[in-house]
């Protein structure tokens, strides 16, 4: 470049001066020459770049024209929707029982939506829809169909008949999309275990199913995880046993005029829950809305077996006896002072009957003496009692695979005083769930190993690490529990051939004022069978039972929960594959309780 060439070249300036010309003219000339050169250079470059641009535009227009031709000449395809709908993961795994029978599955059905801009006759469409679905709001539909909305959900779930009826309307703006529905083929029978689902993200082509309660919520991530490849979730529940238990319990609840009932059956050696029923219940296919008024604990949604904590009364006496045996304070034949009433400051403890001044420890359990266990527990002290109950898991939240259990911890005395120790020894002043009780009973009768209740089929067997009482203590407790049925408060609980053992409990219900009702009890029977080698623990609990026996009103567990439990065992023991024991008992007339 000629940048270095000065605008006023000295030789020319000097020459111009010599001639007497204006030297500025020289500079102007130089400047003009330079500009001319620059413009020529610029023009040449611009010509090249303009050519490039024209080519680029030409190619771009050719591309657009070519694409236009390709689109226009393409074979018309069936239009296919795209987008997020396809991305909704819709492969919720099934839930099966221990034998692989389906508890929850998915059913292909349809959803109904409207695109008002495509509607031929919105008025007619509303009339037609109202004839098919009388529960819809006609005014609202009309508003939606004639307004500015481009998309309106009409019905989330359609039966095939409804779908056909909608299609028969012939309205192009009403559209039906496929949709998977969570189906519980057995209805209400395991409602509290399964919980329920709702629709999550909804699309035209599918919708997400999201767990809202029960194992559906607890294992939501697993059930929705496509990586599991449709592997079902297997529960420890047995469908037939659950069904039989619910049936008998329902009949028993009616017969005993109880307002609610609970039954828990678990394996004594593993803690696997085979059946868990809480009545009243609901149909998870049409899960009701949570109640807005009243006590939520009275709602059918409330799981009384694993969520509700109750004072379970004399069923706790076995723990006091176990603690005494285990610590060496007493053996089954040690005589205990049962003189009543037992007064402690302003508090009086009475027995249901007066059993005389002294009973052996075995008979304290068999006859369910409050004063006996209270004295025993007071002798051993509150701390030891607390430690022992803690070992059984009775003082902490239930470690069960249900989200509901995390909301209900056992109710314990604020201060574990001496009077608390006494009342807790016979199950008042402490409230736990029936599943707590069942798991603790399992440890009492299975040889002394603590089990963790579970709803899953794959569990580890308890080992010596889990030992809470010695085997010999466990054997002694089996004998006591068997005696309760043979000659004690649970005599109606004997089922021929299955060697039932157990302990009754009739706990006064606390009233809202903080005291106890005079005439309302929770009748509980915690049982195990067969007692020569206990396989199963059954807890049956009736809320406010009340039965008229030979003109006398009966509320205690021996007259209410026990016969119901006996009927349950009679029904389910064969289902569980237990062989009846050769008869060594006096036969009893079966009490038929089932509702049908």
């Amino acid at each position: 470049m000629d940048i270095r060439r000065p605008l006023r070249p000295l030789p020319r300036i000097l020459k111009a001066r010599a001639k007497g010309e204006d030297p500025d003219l020289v500079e102007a000339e130089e400047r003009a020459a330079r500009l001319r050169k620059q413009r020529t250079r610029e023009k040449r470059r611009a010509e090249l770049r303009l050519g490039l641009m024209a080519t680029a535009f030409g190619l771009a227009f050719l591309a657009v024209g070519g694409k236009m031709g390709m689109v226009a000449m393409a074979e018309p395809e069936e239009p296919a929707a795209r987008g997020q709908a396809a991305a909704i993961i819709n492969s919720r795994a099934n839930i099966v029982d221990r034998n692989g029978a389906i508890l929850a599955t998915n059913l292909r059905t349809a959803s109904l939506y409207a695109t008002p801009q495509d509607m031929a006759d919105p008025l007619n469409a509303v009339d037609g829809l109202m004839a098919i679905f009388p529960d819809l709001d006609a005014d609202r539909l009309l508003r939606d169909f004639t307004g500015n909305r481009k998309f309106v959900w009409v019905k989330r779930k359609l039966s095939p008949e409804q779908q056909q009826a909608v299609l028969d309307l012939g309205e192009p703006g009403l559209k039906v999309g496929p949709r998977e529905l969570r189906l519980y083929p057995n209805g209400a029978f395991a409602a509290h275990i399964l919980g329920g689902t709702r629709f999550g993200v909804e699309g035209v082509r599918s919708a997400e199913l999201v767990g809202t309660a029960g194992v559906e919520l607890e294992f939501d991530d697993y059930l929705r995880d496509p990586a599991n490849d449709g592997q079902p979730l297997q529960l420890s529940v047995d469908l037939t046993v659950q069904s039989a238990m619910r049936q008998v319990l329902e009949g028993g609840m009616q017969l005993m005029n109880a307002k609610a009932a609970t039954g828990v059956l678990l394996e004594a050696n593993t803690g696997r829950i085979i059946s868990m029923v809480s009545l009243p219940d609901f149909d998870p296919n049409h899960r009701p809305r949570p109640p807005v008024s009243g006590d939520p604990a009275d709602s059918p949604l409330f799981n009384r077996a694993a969520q509700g904590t109750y004072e379970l009364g004399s069923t706790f006496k076995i723990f006091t006896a176990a603690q005494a045996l285990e610590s060496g304070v007493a053996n089954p034949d040690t005589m205990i002072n049962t003189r009543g009433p037992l007064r402690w400051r302003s508090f009086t403890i009475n027995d249901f009957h007066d059993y005389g001044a002294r009973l052996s420890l075995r008979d304290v359990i068999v006859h369910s003496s409050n004063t006996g266990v209270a004295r025993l527990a007071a002798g051993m002290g509150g701390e030891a009692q607390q430690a022992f109950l803690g070992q059984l898991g009775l003082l902490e939240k239930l470690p069960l695979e249900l989200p509901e259990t995390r909301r209900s911890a056992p109710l314990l005395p604020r201060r574990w005083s001496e009077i608390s120790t006494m009342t807790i020894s016979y199950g008042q002043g402490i409230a736990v769930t029936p599943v707590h009780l069942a798991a603790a009973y399992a440890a009492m009768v299975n040889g002394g190993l603590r089990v963790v209740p579970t709803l899953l089929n794959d569990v580890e067997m308890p080992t010596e690490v889990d030992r809470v009482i010695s085997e010999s203590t466990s054997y002694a407790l089996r004998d006591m529990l068997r005696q309760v049925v043979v000659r004690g408060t649970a005599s109606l609980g004997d089922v021929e051939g299955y060697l039932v053992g157990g302990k009754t409990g009739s706990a006064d219900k606390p009233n809202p004022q903080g005291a106890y009702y005079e005439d309302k009890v929770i009748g509980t029977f915690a049982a195990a069978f067969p007692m020569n080698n206990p396989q199963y623990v059954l807890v049956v609990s009736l809320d406010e039972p009340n039965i008229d026996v030979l003109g006398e009103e009966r509320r205690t567990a021996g007259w209410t929960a026990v016969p119901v439990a006996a009927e349950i065992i009679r029904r389910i023991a064969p289902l569980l594959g237990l062989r009846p024991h050769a008869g060594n008992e006096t036969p009893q007339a079966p009490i038929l309780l089932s509702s049908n």
Partner: protein
Amino acid sequence: MTEMVHGAQAPHERESGLPEWWRTVDRLSIAAVFALFLIGMLLALAASPPLALDQGKPRFFYVERQAVYGIIGLAAMLYISTLSVKAARRWAVIGFVVVLVALALLPWLGTDYGKGAIRWYSFGLGSIQPSEFIKPLFAVTAAWLLAASTDIAGPPGRVISFIFAATIVGILVVQPDYGQAALIVASWTTIFFVGGAPKKLIITLGALVVGGGLLAYNTVAHVAKRIDGFLLAEIDPQTQIGYATTAIQDGGLFGVGIGRGSVKWTLPDAHTDFIIAVAAEEFGLIFTLVIIALFMFLTMRALLRLRRERDMFIRLSGVGLATVLGAQALINLGVAVRLLPAKGMTLPFVSYGGSSLLAAGIMMGLLMVMTRKRVQGDMGDILGGRV
């Protein structure tokens, strides 16, 4: 000597009035513009009655309005094309300042007509969209500044014009109107390119454009959604693009027949952004190829004519104007055939829209000024031959 500087007429006796205009103006391009306008009228007859009826207006409401605006636009084009370069530049720069102020005041004084972006000034009779007018006016102003900057010891026109461009793009992005912003960027870039951008800078700018696009994609939700919708292989038939594609397919080579198309009933922007879909459906592929060819002709012819131009300002403003025209047509057509993501962009002279038609007229008028035949001092001129 000064007549050599930018913006000057060649120093010769001026032949006056109509004959000179007729001899020097690009008559073929003007014919092409008239052809496009007539096609636009034809398509308006097809595409706009459903919308007019839907809004409870007379059947040919939009047709009539298009005719009125179109004729005003064409008149503006013809009038402007008679102006001298100096006069055209002066009015364009004044207009640019006015429109830039109007554009900047939009957020306070404008309206969005419920469409989410504030782009319009509402008047009793109609509305004005300043961003349509800013494009040609900006092209001329930027060309003026850049051309001046190439003078020895000239003003820093590159920086000033860049600041203007950035300001306008900023305002448009805030609206948001990424389509018009892209046109501003395109016209400034091509002016700069032809005006002698260093190669290094061209490469750097190219990288910046790609980076900015990625940024918009990653930060602005509705841009990302549109781009995704475009990139995904399957088309949802319930979107504008889906309807447009179906319409083009249905049209085939010769179309389904005048008035028999259905896309105009479903596509809300059938008369503006997706007018080409209506054309394809009712008149067929060949007809749409004619439209594409007309735009291609206008753009390329302008650019090629400008190669002879020795005046820097004329060349550069011509480039800017031709780019706006070509790029706008390309974006509109490219969207309809899914070569580009969906962007609201009218097809000059063809789409309905008062601002669009008027602005297109101004743009073509200015372009016609720039592409007029002039004595360029090369051999042909010197020998007095007719070029």
